[in-house]
């Protein structure tokens, strides 16, 4: 299991070297979107309309942060559970997005889309919102402000720690890890 430092936007060259279980420190711009924002973004794609940001090489972070304290760019900002985005993620990957950050398992369709479009599903530590929020150096709402914590934010991260869960070869860290430690009766 290797450790990489990568800067967004990601390319296929970046993503294809990563294997389930690798640690990655992400740098650069990433975009936040949860349930409601995904629903709107995918509707725009299906209608052939322009998105509020360029999907090519983008990394999408499934997060709804707490309100920032005065002087901070953002509040606590750990990942939300990813399966709720399963119906949207293949469309995002097909249209150029290269990475997702969340927590918890994904559907077979998402794993297949990672293989087909050189995408990576990264896991961040759920519930480590204070720690992860500190790695976010700037944040700006760029779409859907009425959604509050679910608005789309453009954020800049430094050494944001994530683990490769689903890689471009179809491996799944959750399955691998569980098989290794399961005690069968």
């Amino acid at each position, binding site marked *: 299991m290797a450790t990489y430092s990568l800067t967004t936007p990601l390319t296929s060259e970046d993503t294809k070297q990563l294997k389930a279980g690798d640690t990655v420190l992400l740098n650069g711009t990433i975009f936040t979107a949860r349930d409601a924002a995904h629903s709107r973004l995918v509707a725009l794609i299906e209608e052939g309309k322009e998105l509020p940001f360029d999907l090519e090489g983008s990394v999408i972070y499934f997060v709804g942060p*707490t309100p920032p304290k005065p002087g901070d760019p953002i509040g*606590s900002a750990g990942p939300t*559970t990813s399966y709720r985005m399963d119906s949207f993620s293949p469309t995002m990957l097909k249209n150029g997005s290269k990475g997702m950050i969340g927590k918890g398992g994904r559907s077979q369709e998402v794993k297949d889309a990672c293989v087909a479009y050189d995408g990576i599903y990264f896991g961040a530590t759920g519930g480590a*919102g*204070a720690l992860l929020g500190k790695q976010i150096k700037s944040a700006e709402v760029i779409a859907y402000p009425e959604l509050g914590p679910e608005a789309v934010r453009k954020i800049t991260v430094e050494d944001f720690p994530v683990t490769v869960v689903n890689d471009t070869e179809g491996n799944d860290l959750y399955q691998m890890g569980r*098989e290794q430690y399961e005690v069968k009766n």
Partner: protein
Amino acid sequence: MREIEFDVVVKAVRDMIMHCGTDLPQDTYDALEQAMEDEKSPVSKEVIRQLLENANIAKDEKRPLCQDTGLAVFFVNVGEEVRINGGLLRDAINQGTEQGYTDGFLRASTCEPFSRLNLKDTVGYNLPAIIHFDIVKGDKIDIEYAAKGGGSENVSRARVFPPAAGKDGIVNYVKEVISDAGGNPCPPITVGVGIGGTFEKAVISSKHALFRDLETTNPDPEMAELEERMLTEINNLGIGAMGMGGTKTALAVHIEANPCHIASLPVSVNVQCHSSRHTHITI
């Protein structure tokens, strides 16, 4: 009849919400430290190390432990010899909740079920709080509070079994719920199991079981043994911290059992994430 001022309750609730948002309770912190020591998987060990570091940062810098600062859930025991001066107890708890979430910069996660919009705005208005009242002897008010996150709530389930299902049926059901949940509820989790009563009694009992300090066991030896058995079987699933694979999937299993109908064996499984933010005060 003892009188308690409305504003005293508001302030007490506000303070406990703000404290719980940033300061992981000692029992939870201790349980995570123990879990880090016991965990066999280096990947899960590292996750738990991050959780402890996160707790230290949150406490020192007064940042929310998690962006999911939960729905505010209360169990309130009201002494029969006490009354609130200046308003309703329910209103005081809701007002304290609003103040706590606003002043603590905590996320208001409450929304309407279909529009998905917050009922007012997204800072502070985490209302209505979920409040369970009971009347008890005495002239005090005891307020138990927990911040209940969505990820762990989403994997919770309840079912009414036929009595013949027995302990084995319940253990298998709990295992099935946790196995299906995998890493989604942010393990290492606490598992609240409500057994018996009616359907809703089992559910509320499973919620209340999560308010108990993590190191405690059920006072009934039979239930304590069942808690231990469930904990072992859950940890044998191999899910590990955040589902990365490991030997510590749960920190504790807490059972609350009630007498039930001769035809029924209700069971409810309510899950709390590793960030078990709970506390209580007596006024």
